[in-house]
Structures are given as C-alpha cells and as structure tokens.
C-alpha cells in the first residue's frame, strides 16, 4: 500500500463573500524515496493540498466535498483528532516558507525542538532510543540530546551551545535549518515542504536543497515539495505534478514532464522562465493560452 494516496480530493473554502471551490479532484500517489514536486502559480491550490495531508485546514472555513487522503492506510479526512496528532511530527514532518515567522520569537530554539522530540518520543519511545517505561527525566534528557544531534546534522555550527539561543540570533538560512531539524527529529516517513527555499538567497537555497536531498536519500522517505520555481523542481525532484486552478494538469517523472511536456500550460510555464541560456525576445508568457486549453 502506498505511503500517501490522494484520490479525487475536492476542497471548498468559505470566506465572508461566500464559498468557493479550490481543489477540483486531486489525485496523487507518493512512495518512499520519491521526491514529488508540486509546481503551480499563485492561487493554484498547491499549499492547500499540502495542508490537507496533515489535516491542518480547520473545517469551517474549509469543507471537503469529496475524495480521500490515505496515509499508510489510514484515511486522514476521517481519522480522530488524537490519531492525527500522533501522525503529525512523528510520521509527517512539515516545513513552511518564511524562516523569520515560523519560529516562536520569545522561546529558545532548544525549547521548541525538544518539545517536538518529546511529542514524537511519547508516540514512539524508540525514536529517542528509549524503552516505553523510561521516566520523564530520561525522556527530557534523551530529547535534548537528540535535538543537539539533529541540529548538528542539519549543519548548525556549535549546536550544543546554540541550542539555547533565540531565533533572532540566527540568519534566515540557519533558521530554515532549525525548522528542517524540527521536522525531521520525529523520524517522519513523509516530509511536506511548502516553498522551503523561496525566502532564501540563491546560494543558501542550494545548500538547503542539498540538505533535504541528503536527508531523504539517507532515510528513504517520501517528500512533497511545493514550489512555484521550476528550477528547484528540476534540480531536486524525481517526480512532478503541474497544478493550475485546483487541478493537476500533468504529472509523472521529472525527466518526462519537464523535457517532453504533454500539456500546453507546462510548455508555456517552461518558456516563461528566463535561464542563463535564454536569448533576448525568446520569452513567451501565457499569452498563447486560452481558457479552452485547460478544458
């Protein structure tokens, strides 16, 4: 049975102007070891799809009209909140876009990462290398040790000391590494990364993508990487799904979709990206496309 199997997912969101349907029948299957890129422009519904997997969209205002999301056999949309909480952090790790706002500013980074480790540890003590009967103090000590180990693994220099620093004492790139450590400390089977490098400089972005790639290869986990940047998809992903206004127009192996795009929208997207090799005047936006081309 697949790691993640999304079938015919239909989601509507209610705002004070009324309810609008956002996702129109999303189908996606992710296996371990696969890095799926979900690429689309603003308003394509890619982030909402990501949030639905850990059922982080409160209902209301969200409403799932149809479809199912099966994670290792359990249907996320129907699971009890308690079970969902055990999934989050332990089986599904999540990273969001902006490192400056995703870390609680008034707590030391150690406090936050240890809490996540403790949560994962209580769900499954082996994550912290403990037996079920371990005492609270042992849990806390093991969690802190694991946190330092994880911070070191994601490339935080002098992790043992810096664990007690505050978020504002870290650069954007470093903060994103802390967030990755938090997401990976529970040994998740699936990592969801929503625009993990968009807020970072190109040089830092390359290092973070390298870090994600190595972690995935080492732990053979599945990844859903949500981004609007085709370059990032081409660089790190094994598979890609192209989204537009709540529909997946095309999906498959990166080599097939990006080199021999079947859908005209994918082709247009590819032609819109100015690379270091694009000649002046070659760029053509979506001008050639009409609503029919999305029928």
């Amino acid at each position: 049975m697949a790691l993640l199997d999304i079938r015919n997912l239909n989601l509507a969101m209610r705002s004070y102007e009324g309810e609008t349907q956002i996702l129109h029948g999303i189908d996606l299957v992710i296996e371990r070891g696969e890095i799926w890129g979900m690429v689309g422009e603003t308003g394509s519904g890619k982030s909402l799809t990501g949030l639905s997997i850990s059922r982080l969209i409160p209902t209301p205002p969200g409403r799932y009209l149809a479809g199912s999301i099966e994670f290792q056999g359990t249907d996320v949309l129907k699971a009890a909140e308690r079970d969902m909480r055990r999934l989050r952090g332990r089986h599904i790790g999540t990273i969001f876009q902006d490192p400056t706002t995703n870390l609680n500013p008034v707590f030391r980074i150690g406090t936050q990462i240890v809490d996540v480790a403790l949560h994962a540890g209580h769900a499954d003590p082996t994550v912290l290398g403990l037996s079920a009967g371990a005492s609270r103090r042992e849990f806390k000590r093991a969690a802190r040790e694991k946190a330092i180990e994880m911070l070191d693994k994601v490339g935080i220099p002098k992790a043992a000391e810096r664990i007690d620093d505050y978020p504002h004492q870290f650069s954007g790139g470093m903060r994103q590494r802390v967030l990755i450590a938090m997401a990976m400390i529970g040994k998740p089977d699936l990592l969801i990364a929503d625009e993990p490098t968009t807020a970072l400089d190109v040089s830092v972005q390359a290092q973070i993508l390298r870090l994600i790639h190595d972690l995935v290869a080492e732990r053979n986990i599945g990844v859903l990487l949500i981004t609007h940047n085709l370059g990032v998809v081409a660089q790190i992903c094994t598979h890609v799904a192209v989204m537009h206004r709540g529909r997946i127009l095309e999906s498959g192996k990166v080599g097939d979709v990006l080199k021999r795009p079947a859908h005209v929208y994918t082709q247009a997207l590819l032609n819109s990206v100015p690379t270091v090799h694009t000649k002046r005047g070659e760029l053509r936006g979506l001008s050639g496309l009409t609503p029919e081309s999305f029928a």
Partner: protein
Amino acid sequence: MLLFVLRRLVLVVPILIGLTLLLFVVARLLPGDPVGLAAGPNATPELIASLRQEFGLDQPLPIQYWTYLTGLVTGDWGMSVFTRRPVFEDVLTYLPATLELVFAALIIAVVVGIPLGLLTAVYRNGVLDYATRTLALGGIAMPRFFLGLLLQLAFAAWLDILPLSGRYPLIEIPPETVTGFYTVDALIAGDWYALRIALAHLALPAIAMALSPLATIMRMMRASTIEVLQQDYVMTERALGLSNRLILFKYVLKNAMTSTLTVIGLYVSWMLGGTVLVETVFDWPGLGLYATQAILTQDFMPVIGVTLVIAIIYLFTMLVVDVLYGVFNPKVRYA
C-alpha cells in the same frame, strides 16, 4: 539585563525634573489665593503678610523653585495651608489607603481579565464569548462613581451585607501598621477578625475601580491572543503535532502577554488618577480626597505633592512593565 534597567532609570530623571518644574509653574502662575482663603474673610493685611512670609511666598520665583526642589529631596514638600501640616506627612498618611485600593482593583482586573481574554479568544464566537464581550463593553462604559453608587445601593442599602463606606469602622482599632495596608497588616498580625472587616470595606470600592480596567485587559488579551493564534509559528507547532493545550498555555500565552502588559501598566496611572472619584463615593481616606479638598481650597502645595507622588508611582510602574517586557521578549533584552 542590569544595564537595560539602569539605562531606563537614567531616562526617568529628566522627566522627573521636568515634572516638578511644570507643576511648580502651573501652581504658581495660576490665579487663586490660598493664603487669603486660609486667613479667612476678615483677615487683617498684617496676618496675610505674615502668612505669605511664613510660606515663603514673597521671594522671587526661581528662589522659591530652588528651595522647593531642595526641599523635595529632603522630604520638605511644603506646608498644606488648609491642614497646616507638612504635605509630605499628609501624603504618607493617605498614600497607603490609595495604594491598597489600587492594588486590590488591579489584582481583580488581572486575575479575572487575563484568563477570560484567553478563553474567549480560543472559544471565539461561542456563547461565553458574546456574553463577556457585551459585558465588557458595558464595563468600559460604566462610570466608576455611578457604579460605586449602584453597588452601595444594592449591597449596602438594600442587602446590607457590606459596609456603605469608609475604610475602617471608627469603633474598631485597625491592625498595627507594618505596611500601611490594613488587609496585609491584619494578615501579618494573624488577626482574622480585622482582616474580615478590612476586606469587607475594601470590596465595593475595589470592584467599582476594577470593572473598567478588567474589561479592557480582557479585550486586549483576547485581541492579542487571536492575533498570536494566527501567526505562522503556531501553524508550525500544530503541524509538528504539539497539543493545543501546550501550544496555548506555553507558546501563545507568553507572546500574548507582551502586548497586554503595556495596557496593564497604563491602567495603573489611570487608576491612580481616578481614585479621587471612588474615594469620594466611599469616603475612602486616600490621596484622592486629600487632593480634592486641596483643589477646592486652591491650596496648591498638596496638589503638587499628590500629583508628584502619583507621577513617581507611574514612572516606577512603567519601569517594572519595561523590565517585564524584557523578560517576556528576549529581542528587547539584547537590544
């Protein structure tokens, strides 16, 4: 951290000096003749002259200000023409009553306001939320002195379960003074009977004083909690499986407290300034009553004394709020 506190202290001195100067000018330049009033309608010119001389009112202004300033430091805050006692002495006798009332009101406002704000933020648009929000609007709008009257009407006159006014019945001997707060002194002396009387007298004025700050602190706490709940880091904490209880009482509460703190600080000065109203309704022998009498008799030294004390307490509270803000928000501490 110490440097942070010292730096704040240094900033307070110029404000204090400015304050005394302003008050001195306001009092001196204003028309109104305290000596004339004190000397009585048919006072002879010689009596008025000797009175003016006694209070040093005949010297040039800068000298008067300098003697006043040096006096301040040495505890000589001038004489109250009306009570014919040193202002400093009067202030010391009346201050504890006002402080006790303000602290009691503040404690009620904070102890009830903060949790209520948190609850209504989490269970938004529930019955509790709507009820507390409308009550809060009523609480803010209710004038303290009118509320005092209504409380007196209900609890003292009709139900007769609480004393109508006053701070301590004349026939009873108040507990011997340690802090000047009857409730605390009674506790120190372990005199439960005195404690019960003190609390009974304190209850109504404290509630009258506390309702409006309670409502505002509750609304402020609710607004900042809601804002914090919408932050990205709360979504990350939820996505990584932390329980709602842990997120709310550990990660959200500390952030929400930072902005509510400043409101609490502001309320101390609002309360200190407003004690005069509640004290008038409940004949509470505090600085408010003392200031009102001084103003009605145009005796400016006590007014300066009272305003100075309240301003000093305000500056001290703002310092405490700043320090607490530094404790809550590390970015400020390392600024």
